[in-house]
């Protein structure tokens, strides 16, 4: 049928064909899904805003709690690793060494955690109204960016307090953020879509985060890693970004170029996989929840 021709004849009654909705047992195509997702900018923004408003409205010292988590963890590790075990810290005071990596890692950990629980938490919305479901884990994970910005800003007074000078490489920190964000979204979306059927998976998320944390050079420098394991740490898609982030602020050794590229590649592949699985689960989601 030449539907398109007819549309022009009655353009008052019908909205443009791009707004038309086709429902079938086969589900929607990738292009349609993508276009729809791109149309939900307003919704994504509103949902992120909601996360932030709720989070900051409930606590009097909202911003303070945001900073507290990475700072406390950095302090604990500085006592443990800096004072007791005396892990080398690339010539920096240990807190200054650990904090930037911790800030970036918290972006991953929080983004992953919020994304993975999001679908089950928003069960009511999913069973009562339609919108591209990907918006839910996406907004949950992206809301962690606000915390990240605040805790990153704290690096500057921290540097001042410990008398550490900032590196001229500072702008490079922007390159370190996207792979971590992709990883957080990918892991969040992946666990979220599987936890619709297997509720227990939500319990697994913190466990993965913890293991991954020790496989990432957040609280130790790369040089303490035995030679044979160094490559494993660098293949870890979270490894290079953390090293790069710290290096951008405080001039610690840069990770090799290939590891940054592989980090981008792996995180994007993982993201694609996660979204593919999500799209498979998406159609039956309301029936399972």
């Amino acid at each position: 049928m030449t539907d398109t021709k007819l549309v022009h004849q009655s353009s008052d009654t019908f909205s443009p064909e791009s707004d038309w909705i086709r429902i079938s047992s086969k589900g929607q195509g990738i292009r349609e899904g993508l276009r729809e997702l791109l149309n939900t900018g307003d919704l994504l923004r509103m949902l992120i805003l909601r996360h932030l408003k709720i989070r900051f409205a409930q606590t009097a010292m909202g911003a303070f709690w945001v900073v507290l988590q990475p700072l406390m963890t950095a302090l604990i590790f500085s006592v443990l690793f800096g004072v007791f075990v005396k892990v080398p810290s690339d010539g920096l005071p240990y807190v200054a060494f650990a904090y930037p990596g911790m800030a970036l890692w918290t972006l991953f950990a929080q983004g992953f955690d919020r994304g993975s629980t999001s679908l089950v938490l928003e069960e009511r919305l999913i069973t009562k109204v339609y919108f591209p479901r990907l918006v839910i884990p996406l907004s949950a994970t992206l809301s962690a960016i606000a915390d990240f910005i605040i805790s990153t800003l704290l690096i500057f007074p921290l540097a001042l307090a410990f008398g550490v000078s900032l590196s001229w490489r500072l702008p490079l920190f922007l390159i370190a953020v996207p792979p971590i964000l992709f990883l957080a979204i990918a892991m969040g979306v992946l666990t979220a879509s599987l936890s619709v059927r297997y509720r227990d998976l939500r319990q697994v998320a913190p466990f993965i985060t913890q293991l991954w944390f020790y496989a990432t050079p957040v609280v130790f420098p790369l040089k303490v890693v035995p030679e044979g394991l160094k490559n494993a740490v660098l293949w870890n898609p979270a490894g290079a970004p953390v090293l790069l982030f710290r290096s951008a602020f405080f001039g610690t050794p840069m990770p090799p170029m290939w590891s940054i590229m592989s980090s981008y590649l792996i995180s994007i592949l993982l993201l694609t996989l996660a979204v593919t699985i999500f799209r498979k689960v998406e159609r039956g989601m309301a029936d399972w929840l």
Partner: protein
Amino acid sequence: MMPMIEVQGLGKSYAMLQPGEKWSGDFADIAADALHRLMHGQLFRRRKHEIFWALKDLSFSVQPGEVVALAGHNGAGKSTLLKVLSRITSPNEGSALIRGRIGSLLEVGTGFHPDLTGRENVYLAGTILGMRRQEVAARFDEIVAFAEMEAFIDTKVKRYSSGMYLRLAFSVAAHLSTEVLLVDEALAVGDVNFQRKCMGKMGQIAGQGRTVFFVSHSVSAMRTLCTRGILLDHGRQVMDGDIETIVQAYLAHGAKVSDLGNEWTNVTDNFCDPFFQPLSLRLFDEDAPGSPSFQYGSRIVAEIEGKIEASAPDLNIGLVISTPEGTEVFRTFLRDTLALVETRLEPGNHCFRVGLPCRILNEGDYRIEIVALHKQWILEPGKGNPSLPLAIHGGFGTTPYWIQRRPGTIAPELGWSIQPS
């Protein structure tokens, strides 16, 4: 003209789990199930699920501007159809094409968050329901004015009374600007005045030339708002025609349900409310408990079983008896009884029993529904509550005087006397 909505061979099925089988999603259960199947040597055998078709072979098209009533009894597939058309769930067969944006008003308060202010919630719920931010901004004043909430719009929603909350939530939903609207009648909320306003607003929406699907149990609402109807039964499309034909068929259809017996049981955990959740409704003849039918002189007993989770001092439970056309014959409440007027209802399962007056209801078909209120309606009359058909047939009086149904809505047998004057 091209139809606004084209539905072809639409079907939606669910796999029903076997009795005793459940899917909790816990690893422990999954492992236990796998072990069980391993021991019975059927680990790799595909489980046979019974397939239940909630919708089957639906085909129809709707022209722009048509207001279509979806009629049918509970479980006929009305809500499933709305869910499929609004894309909340996807069909297993067939297809539908909708030439425009679609908005669904299936529940009041979707997307509201108690910790946000009224203003923030209007924007949030509006975008969740499919409006763009600018559209919400353009209608914001209108939305707030309709809800009569100007004074409290910057107060957190958790400080609202439930009436205020419902008013604002309805108002957001009612101002959607999509070409197609799916509306559930349960949306008319709040006190009587606001409900009237809600229905008025729906009528206005229907008159704007937009395409509307309207689900309702109320015949009068269907007649006022709709031009056409589609009657569903057990997921099948039984009839499609002008609204009067559908209403008549719907009413005639209602009378047949009495074949199903005199008992309603809450199998799906519906009507969940902490103060009162109905579990079952049963009608029986006190003199002949096994008898399936009632006569004019039968002493009919209605028994409501219900669950109370939160102690509710003001909870009141009752029954409404109405004619198939929806005219109420009478209502009766627990608190009508003097001895029970101040009884506190404690958490737990309770059985409420009442004897219906005999020798009053005239020969004919009635519907009896559970109603409940606690400060406000939990089960409001005429809103698709648990109900049973009640048919009174035969036995026109104690004396042999009447040999057929007497005229009149009710047929009370009164005590006459003759005095010498």
